């Protein structure tokens, strides 16, 4: 719960049920006056993850459209452009240690999905 200690702003995105299991969706949010795209994933075990939507290899805002799965037990999303895998937990690219995408905290309140932004 260290995340809550920091000064986070929780933005309500949609009802959790709106997310298909094992599939992603994109959300358009704002942080510091700039638009931020977040890719949200609801996995089969019920957990929800949020990472940056922009694929660092292609520059396209498409990570939410990748296939989710696991690599060696780590939940991942594979970019739909050039197929690199990103950890949904840390945002680390598993195919290139120099690359990662941002990770955002999520929580559910009254069935509503909220994303924590700085």
């Amino acid at each position, binding site marked *: 719960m260290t995340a809550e200690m920091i000064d986070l702003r929780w933005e309500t*995105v*949609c009802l959790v049920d*709106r*997310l*298909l*299991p*094992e*599939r992603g*969706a*994109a*959300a*358009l*949010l704002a942080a510091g006056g700039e*638009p931020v*795209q977040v890719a*949200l994933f609801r*996995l*089969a075990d019920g957990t929800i993850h949020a990472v940056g939507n*922009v694929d*660092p*290899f*292609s*520059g*396209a*805002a*498409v990570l939410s*459209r*990748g*296939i*989710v*799965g*696991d*690599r*060696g*037990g780590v*939940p*991942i999303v*594979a970019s*739909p*452009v050039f*197929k690199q*895998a990103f950890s949904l937990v840390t945002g680390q690219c598993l195919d290139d240690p*120099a*690359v*990662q995408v941002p990770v955002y905290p999520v929580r559910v309140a009254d069935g509503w999905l909220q994303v924590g932004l700085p």
Partner: protein
Amino acid sequence: MKELVVVGNGMVGHRLVQAMRDRDTAGTWRITVLGEETRPAYDRVALSSYVDGKTAEDLTLPEVADPLVRLHLGDAAVALDRDARVVRTASGRELPYDALVLATGSVPFVPPVPGRDLPGCFVYRTLDDLDAIMAAAERAVSAARPGRRSAVVVGGGLLGLEAARALRLLGLSPQVVEIAPRLMPVQVDEGGGALLRRLVESEDLQVRCGVSVTGIGEDRGRLIASLSDGIELDADVVVFSAGIRPADGLARAAGLPVGERGGVLVNTACRTPDPHVWAVGEVAALEGRTYGLVAPGYAMAEVVADRLLGGEATMTPAELDMSTQLKMLGVDVASFGDALGRTPGALEVVVNDPVAGTYAKLVVSDDAKTLLGGVLVGDASKYATLRPLVGSPLPADPVAMIAPGGVELGADALPDSAQICSCNAVTKGALREAICGGAHDVPALKACTRAGTSCGSCVPLLKTLLAQEGVEVSKALCEHFAVSRAELFEIIAGTGIRTFSELIAQHGTGRGCDICKPAVASILASLGSGHVLSAEQAALQDTNDHFLANLQRNGTYSVVPRIPGGEITPEGLIVIGEVARDFGLYTKITGGQRIDLFGARVEQLPAIWRRLVDAGFESGHAYGKALRTVKSCVGTTWCRYGQQDSVGLAVALELRYRGLRAPHKIKSGVSGCARECAEARSKDFGVIATETGWNLYVGGNGGFTPRHAELIASDVDTDTLITLIDRFLMFYIRTADRLQRTASWIEAMDGGLDHLRAVIVDDSLGICSDLEAAMEKHVEGYADEWRGVLEDPEKLERFVSFVNAPETPDPTISFVTERGQPVPVTLGLPGVRA
């Protein structure tokens, strides 16, 4: 720079040039090649496949493109001035040389019988010879005259039997006349020859041994061959294949010594007494003996290349591999090493099974410890493992090695010195080294050692070697499934499991990934499991199948309506144009005869498709690993040359197979005549009209390594054609690996195209009715996927840009105008090196 002139552009001359360019990295030699034929060098060993539908282009050897190599085709050397060191050619060229290599090969021997020059008499040596034979056979077959069309082949050796097979394929009934008491007298012993004759005759080929042709006459437009036993055979075509003679005229005229039976005399370095002149291949008499096979010629070419670059390579007749293998009319024949037991004291072990139709003989040393050679007739499957053992200690009892159900020898029985590929002289040791060096599959081994690139008979052994060296060619689909795609297909089809979660719980581990999920989605689609976006299936689809459109580089999608056969009405064109204009899309006419609309954002897709579906268009499946297009020319409807209605067939095929999911995308084409305007032979399956029906070609395309499709059935009617394509596609869908194109699928198959033909044409596995039923189910179950989305609010809900702002366009997408159309602004690539 030194000048090398190579006289002769056959397989051996070509190999010499290749070997020189591979080794002469410093560029010390400039090479000039003189070829008598006007064609570039081609694979003469595979000459007979020309009548099976291989083209001259297929047989052409890889070009040695190099500024240091000059090739003069259609210009034979006519004189050699050894004092001045100059070669003169037919066209008057004068080429000075520092070294000259004679690679002129041989000419067919035609016995000096009266009438041998009559029209209708041919030799069997070059592609031009085959063109002439094919034209004569065609004239004979189409002549309005009762009775069988027949041919006489003079000579029952390897080439004679191949010629007979070719003539039979051309529609003639061949009779083979052999002066020796048995067929293939050079390679096969008496016992093997007797069985060979029986097997050949059971394939409707008549054989007369122990007689010669005494003359050829003419009678009412046909030829009459008179035999030494008084019999007269009438024929439309006579082919002489009674042996070869070295083409040593140039050397003789220049005063170079020749062997007793012809051939330029050379020493173990392949050098003539003139230190500037060398000879290789069939024109060379190595220590007095000539060799009529390509493997010894290749070995000589390597020796000369080594010598010209200062090496010390030599070769002795004992090192030459005289093995041959022939598969004709379904009869296997192989002979290797000292097949006729000429080594003093040699012992012979024979297993002769006339009931099964097999004959096998091993020749072993007088102490029964070393293998010297052998003959296999009827079943040559052990050739690949026995041949490399020649000269090595016997790994097992010789009887057990050739007895049915006896010892099965693997590659482990072979010593490192054993030649696995005799065509290119590649040893087991060299292959093991290559494997250790990282060549971990058959294509890699072929590329770095040349093994398996000529006749291909050693390819199965290459696979075994890879396995033995511990290279597990894993069939596992990914870390979540230990089975191959084909096995997974069987599991899903057999168990009735239709959800990914159940499948991975019972047959896999973990939660899946972007490799296994789309593979399972494709299998489920092939088994007719409803709309690709229904229920759990939706989560398995990659982005293209999930949005039923093709993801492009900036995150937008392209939209491709189906235009079957490329045929479209003006109204259809107008609708597509209006949609593109109204949504600001970039349009392009594709190579597959469709119109692609680019630059659509996710949230625009339903509105675009609403317009297209209302106008009668349906999904073109450009996004899926599925049937894409069936390209066509205009066919008989408009074309002056068309032989069949190619557009009608292309439309029918595209509609029949639309929506068919497969391991890789599938493309097809139909050409209305042999002019091939639809380029059907570069497709996964292609159809070319003939005068009387359709020719079907399969396995073209090949992706990174382009391939022509190969003929699998000819002159079939439309119903038969469609049945064969049904079977081909279903068999491919069931057994290919993930992302394996039809070309590599056929290449990886044991037995290749012949096996595929046996399965889908002759139904050798008895599965054709299943395959047809599966295709029937697909055809009946087809429904347009986009219509399915537009009619289902739940599915439509997924086509939004943002879950919290469904209609807001992605702010990162922007376009500029280029040549009057919108194109994506190249995106910056944050955080990634250029």
